[in-house]
């Protein structure tokens, strides 16, 4: 029984956990953060990860459903000390920006209409380039009105 459990555990290791130490670090960190904020059942959590040198930026687009509260969280590895997270409209205008939370910026947003939004992350300080980051767009449970 113990052997079977071990085999199951080994086969269940996500692909991300087989990468570099820093990649594993951010994947575990973002997983913990998602678990901490809690997700709404039925809606998927959008995740992106990558690596950036100091002052480099990355962005991607995702669709946010109307009237659904979202937590947009970004984490980075131990060598990163400042990460900036920005939510943009599809045309590129800034809606919200978080740059004060150092290595764990979080944005809370509820879209009035379902639309495509942009998310940009800027690696403001990384002491050992490149630094790994991960972003999660987490749909939260709606608060009953």
């Amino acid at each position, binding site marked *: 029984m113990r052997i079977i459990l071990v085999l199951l555990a080994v086969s269940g290791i996500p692909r991300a956990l087989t990468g570099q*130490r820093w990649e594993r670090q951010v994947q575990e960190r973002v997983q913990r953060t998602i678990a901490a904020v809690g997700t709404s059942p039925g809606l998927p959590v959008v995740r992106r990860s990558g690596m950036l*040198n100091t002052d480099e930026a990355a962005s991607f687009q995702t669709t946010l459903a109307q009237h659904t509260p979202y937590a947009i969280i970004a984490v980075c590895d131990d060598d990163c000390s400042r990460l900036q997270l920005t939510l943009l409209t599809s045309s590129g205008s800034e809606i919200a920006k978080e740059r004060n939370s150092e290595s764990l910026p979080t944005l809370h947003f509820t879209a009035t209409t379902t639309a495509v939004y942009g998310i940009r992350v800027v690696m403001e300080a990384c002491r050992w380039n490149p630094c790994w980051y991960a972003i999660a767009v987490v749909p939260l449970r709606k608060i009953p009105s």
Partner: protein
Amino acid sequence: MASLKRWVLVGLTACSVLALAYLPPRGARSSGKSIFAVQSLQATPARRHAQVLADEWRNADAGVRLLEDRQRLKRDSLPASPTIVFRGPTLPPNVVRNVETVMDSVWRGLGLAETKVRVTLVIELQRPNGSAKSPTPLQDRVAYLAPDSAHRTTCMAYLPAGPYWTSFILGKLEARYEGFAVARFAQWLQASVGPCAFYAAYGTPGRPVQSWLAARNWDVGLYLGSNGIAGGRFSSLTLLGDPRFRWFWDGVYSFPPATVACLAGRPSGCRAAVLAGTTEEWTIPIPNVVLVERRWWRAQHLLPGERYLGDIARTVGRDRFLSFWTSALPVDTALAAALKRPVGEWTADWQRGFVAPIRLGPAPPLGGVAIALAIAVFAIGIVTATASRRQIR
């Protein structure tokens, strides 16, 4: 009397001008050619053009080869040591394992384990004459493909093994050289990792440092090890030889003025030598291929520059070095902050650790001085005698 003084002054000034023009610098001999004559030792325009084209082709060829090798790599073998790829004859597995084992020890010797930027070493084995289908142009130059060229976190080093190391790797070296080669092989590998060792140890540098290093072709970051680049205390300074001989001074004066001033222990010269390449923003090409000069020790701005950044890293410690390495500040500011001293002063002290400051300035030979003084005294005597016999009517 006023006229006499003027004549004496004119005589002395003329002597000084002649001395400045013709006396060789300290330790060197006159080339025997007048500095007033126009000399041209350059090649013809056609030859220069051909050399430029050949260099461009070699650079492009080196880049293409490294990019091809990067494409061929499926997955790096071990996370904590460099991947080694051989080009040329197919090697038996035990030979590959032996080289990997030596490289692992080198890696640990450099204090490296799992790194953010991985290193792949491409060792080009010498092919037997006439066996190659295409020319192998880079047989004596090491090339590096910096991260962000083909892959975000891979630095590749292209290392031509040449006939000696090819024979050693293939186990075909004569027995009498075997013992010596075993001891030197690890040193050769360590020296060959070059800038990739810095990428592995400290990651991708910030833009100012990257631009500075690109402008000077990484001459201050060619070697991370704590020993000399060829073992012991061997450095590019060793190649200059002994100051008692003429070739030492020929070598010294072939370097830029700031380099020579730094060898003389002048902090201002050291500062200028270190900061060469910081005055203008250097565009980092993509792919970023660093092609080390065939005689790299003659293209340095600082002696022994190959270990300069490695010595700084060991002196200031990892945290302070990283703050310099990734800084967005200008290089002189970031470096002075890491060193906690002015760059010129620190560098002058560092250089004194390798060589006693040389003495600069004119160095007239004793015989020449005696003759010049005798001529001057004779001339002054004649002028004095002539002036004293003049009669004013």
